């Protein structure tokens, strides 16, 4: 494990009081760091919406995000169980638990995942969501990886809840709703970009992120400007040559 990246990540996770702090960027950073630091293929993050449902807030890949969405839609899977119980759920071999999750287990296999570790985002009695780690090969997760993953989830949870207390307002709920709506804006932008350049959604998302990074702006702002047609994308010549024919898009069933 990259010790320097790990310590940098903990610093990043406590840095919620900065001006322009953005919950969705924060969650994306957490899922990306999990993939960089731990022996996992992908990570996804679910947070509880006050409406009463779990929502996918961030994921390190489109496949992981779709699988998280699928769990919510089919109302079964280890991440949901983890959230409801507030306890970690470990599934070293998804193929062996089809009877337990008849919809989720095959869908995970189709998405290329063979093992899942779900970690609660929890402070005392309050469970605000779940961090889920996916691996493409079956087998138990490394114990050190699980401990570090849980520590990252704990620090992120404390940072978010503390941020709310420090500002004497319901900032977490305000920002969560903003983040959920940002997620919608990003999906709309992905669709628009995918259609314009004839590419798949994953590629469109990468381009949007790249554009945000190049212009040093928030992903949601870049996406909103692009959807509203008030601005182009930095680092992207939108009227430029079209890339090769589109790859078959997302598998039906998701």
């Amino acid at each position: 494990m990259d010790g320097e990246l790990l310590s940098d990540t903990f610093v990043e996770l406590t840095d919620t009081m900065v001006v322009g702090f953005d919950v969705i960027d924060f969650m994306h950073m957490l899922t990306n760091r999990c993939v960089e630091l731990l022996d996992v293929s992908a990570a996804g993050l679910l947070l509880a919406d006050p409406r009463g449902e779990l929502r996918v807030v961030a994921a390190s890949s489109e496949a992981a995000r779709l699988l998280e969405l699928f769990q919510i839609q089919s109302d079964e899977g280890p991440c949901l169980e983890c959230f409801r119980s507030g306890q970690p759920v470990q599934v070293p071999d998804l193929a062996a638990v089809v009877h337990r999750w008849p919809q989720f287990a095959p869908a995970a296999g189709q998405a290329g995942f063979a093992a899942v570790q779900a970690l609660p985002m929890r402070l005392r009695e309050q469970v605000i969501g779940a961090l889920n780690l996916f691996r493409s090969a079956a087998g138990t997760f490394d114990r050190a990886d699980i401990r570090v993953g849980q520590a990252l989830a704990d620090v992120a949870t404390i940072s978010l809840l503390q941020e709310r207390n420090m500002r004497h307002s319901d900032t977490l709920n305000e920002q969560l709703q903003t983040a959920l709506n940002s997620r919608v804006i990003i999906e709309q932008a992905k669709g628009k970009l995918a259609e314009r350049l004839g590419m798949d959604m994953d590629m469109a998302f990468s381009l949007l992120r790249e554009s945000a990074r190049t212009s040093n702006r928030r992903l949601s702002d870049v996406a909103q400007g692009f959807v509203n047609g008030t601005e182009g994308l930095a680092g992207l010549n939108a009227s430029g040559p079209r890339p090769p024919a589109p790859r078959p898009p997302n598998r039906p069933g998701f």
Partner: protein
Amino acid sequence: MTDSRSARVWSLVAAQSARHGGPVSAADVCLAAVAAVEVTGAWLIAARGAEAGHLMRVTDKASELLAELQVTLGEGPGPDAAASGGPVLASDLDETEAVRRWPAFAPAARQAGAAAIFAFPLQLGAIRTGVMSLYRVRSGPLSAFQLGDALVFADTATMLLLDAQDQLAYGAGPAGTGPGGQPADLTRHRAEIDQATGMLTEQLGVGIGEAFVRLRAYAYAHDRRLSDLARDIVARRLRLSPDPDLREENQA
């Protein structure tokens, strides 16, 4: 879960509308929200493009005054909710933070009788239809349950405002409504619906709001579920024609 909550919220709105016998409107949402969320009053401002809002509905005199104050002073939870794209939950207007944030509006709102204001943007991603605000004479945060309800009331108002646009544009019934005229619950399967809406802006050469209206109108006209239709568009099995009258879609 959300399904039962949106069903309950919808039945409250429908019961409200049954009292006057007309079609369900955003005004019914405001009145039903005041009772269910246990606040004093509510108002709703519809977005007119990116410009400052146009007052649509108020439930009482104080709400009207509060709405006007925000427009006049150009500050307050409502304008902030519209700008940030998230709710603004000002549970105590006497607090230093509130006064610092809205130096003119906070004291004026207290004068008008509001101790807490909760503003909810009526939006679907980049589609903005307005802001719904709730006020209460007593300070204090909304409970988690009340907040959940308030968000679902705001979702309902969003769909009703979009329906009103559908009807203006196409004279058709509300495309996103499910059985019994209930607005479609968009929280599930929503990524594909959002992606399809984005794709339609390009296919049809229209803005995002119009693209969503067209998506719903197509689903309604062809008696299809919005999520199934969206999935076909995202999978590029279906394209919509820029001319709504032609209805010549290329089935791949």
